[in-house]
């Protein structure tokens, strides 16, 4: 068993840089608490793993099956509010409320699916955009129950310590990413969903003509997407220990889309890369700002250095605007790497053998299995 794993690692992972990076990444995520246990950074990584589940579930629903959902926060928020409300009004055990919250998100996915089956393209995007905002209005209206903008406080946490919370979220993230990766793997011999989702996205009428029940598979895509987004929602609300309307608003929906497009749509790893690059970047802008501030204060007050101080002050102002930075990054990515940064990097470091279709490192001269020339 161990020998086989080692053999797989030696011949299957080491020669392919992309897989090696993935393994290093997961090892890093699992040993992160050994590196630092400062609450600030632990929080950052915990939220990043929760949002990774959320972004990957959007990629599965919208990237793979082509149902461009602009209101993914609906599933997130429904799960969060269900779990928080059941916990605070009926004092049910946390595990039970979390499971019911996830099931509520699945139900929301199935319900959204019925009107969505009739629509496509921009119309579908507009329809899905509306649902979380409608729910938001209802939540604001029943303010005695939901607390409106103050939210539901004192949601029980899932673990006693920060490290415990972190490991629960990271294990949930690893498991869900693996499951969704397998579900969308078009080359799999055992699971057909990946291939069928691809077929539906490329040409729905052709998929129907070959005998695929596209309605069933769209329903399945919405249910799976709802399930994992709901999982992210309950984890988020139990880690944050307060349930507010931020779980339902437009920013939450668009964040998922931005992360996925940044990393690379229609590739599960792209969504993970997007979250783990952009989320810490946004989180740490204030650190960068105070760092620049400390530099500019250390610069001596001489007339020759005035331009330098001016530049530093400008950088400091910019660093205080995470949303502006995010918007500029999105524009640049869409214009210059429309397929996403993870896919772009993968294409730079990996090359497919023209004869046996095996993945090779881009710097090899010949294929590692069949010896065909790669140049």
């Amino acid at each position: 068993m161990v020998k086989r794993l080692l053999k797989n690692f030696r011949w299957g992972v080491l020669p392919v840089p992309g897989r090696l990076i993935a393994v290093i990444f997961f090892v890093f995520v699992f040993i992160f608490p050994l590196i630092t246990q400062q609450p600030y950074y632990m929080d950052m990584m915990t939220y990043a793993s929760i949002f990774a589940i959320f972004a990957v579930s959007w990629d599965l629903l919208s990237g793979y099956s082509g149902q461009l959902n602009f209101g993914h926060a609906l599933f997130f928020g429904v799960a969060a509010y269900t779990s928080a409300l059941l916990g605070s009004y009926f004092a049910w055990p946390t595990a039970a409320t979390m499971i019911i919250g996830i099931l509520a998100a699945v139900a929301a996915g199935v319900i959204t699916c019925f009107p969505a089956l009739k629509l496509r393209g921009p119309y579908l995007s507009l329809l899905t955009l509306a649902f979380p905002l409608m729910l938001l209005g209802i939540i604001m209206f029943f303010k005695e129950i939901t607390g409106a903008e103050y939210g539901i406080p004192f949601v029980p946490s899932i673990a006693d310590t920060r490290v415990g919370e972190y490991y629960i979220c990271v294990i949930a993230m690893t498991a869900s990413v693996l499951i969704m990766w397998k579900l969308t793997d078009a080359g799999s011999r055992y699971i057909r969903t990946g291939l069928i989702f691809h077929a539906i996205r490329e040409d729905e009428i052709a998929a129907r003509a070959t005998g695929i029940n596209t309605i069933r598979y769209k329903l399945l895509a919405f249910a799976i997407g709802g399930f994992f987004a709901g999982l992210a929602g309950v984890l988020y609300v139990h880690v944050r220990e307060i349930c507010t309307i931020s779980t339902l608003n437009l920013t939450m929906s668009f964040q998922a889309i931005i992360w996925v497009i940044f990393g690379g749509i229609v590739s599960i790893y792209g969504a993970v890369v997007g979250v783990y690059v952009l989320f810490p970047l946004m989180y740490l802008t204030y650190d960068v700002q105070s760092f620049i501030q400390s530099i500019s204060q250390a610069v001596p007050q001489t007339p020759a250095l005035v331009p330098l101080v001016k530049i530093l002050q400008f950088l400091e102002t910019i660093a205080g605007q995470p949303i502006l930075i995010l918007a500029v990054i999105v524009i640049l990515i869409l214009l210059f790497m429309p397929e996403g940064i993870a896919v772009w990097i993968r294409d730079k470091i990996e090359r497919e053998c023209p004869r046996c279709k095996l993945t090779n490192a881009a710097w090899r001269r010949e294929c590692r299995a069949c010896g065909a020339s790669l140049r």
Partner: protein
Amino acid sequence: MTQQLIVYTVVIGGVYALLSLGFSLIFGVARVLNMAHTAFYMIAAFILFTLFSPVIGLKMNLIPAIIIAVVAVTLLGMLSYKLFIDRVREHHAAVLLITIAVAMAIQEILILIFHQDVRSLPYLVSGYTEILGVRVLNQHLMTLGIVAVIIIIVWLLLSKTKLGITIRAVANDSEIASLMGISVPRTLMIIMGMAAALAAIAGVVMAPLTTLYPTMWSSPLLIVMVIVVLGGLGSIKGSIIGAFIISFVGGVCVIDPLAILGGGGVYLNMTFTLLAMVIVLIVRPAGLFGTIFEEERL
């Protein structure tokens, strides 16, 4: 109460009609869902504030201030089309995202310049006129007059001039139009300029009636989307009628705050408006007057 409701419906409906006209034009011709549309509206309002406000700013005269605001926003719209939207026009998800990013960037830049404060402009014209026993502010009348004139100009432009024929040809089938010797990129640029100008005019007439703050673009955007879906994406008549319907629904929710439900009508305003959109999308995906395109249908 009823008179207030009628005035609210007509004035706000007129402004929304201008906004959704531009949104609908650029969607109908270029198939671009421009989420930055109301950001242009916001910029126009802020430029007018900077140039005209009697408290701070440059204290210019009204007419040059309005002209500068509209022209600047038109140029900005065409520039952002050329730089950002045109390159990703084929993928509608990319267009949606890039326009949202542009809108967010505009919002953040305005926050940098004007901070998060709420500002307001005084009425551009003072006094009121009595029409059929109802006192109507002159400002409201001026707004309505401008809206009516602009809508008539756009309608004449689209139906009577050569440019209008070109635009309609591109909207119908851009490939065939290109074969007939029409420059499609140039037409799309003109349309984007027109859409931005319409948004700017809406911003200028709306500025004295509302408060200005750097996130004021998001709620009109939702309402405009609802209007345009209700009237049919790409239909001009539809978006004008839809604007009045939606502002009436909004007016009922705001002014007559659903007394039975305990006065939370303001929160349910958005829910009801969006519900109207969802129902229209499900029952009649083409909207009231729109045509649905074959490739977008199932």
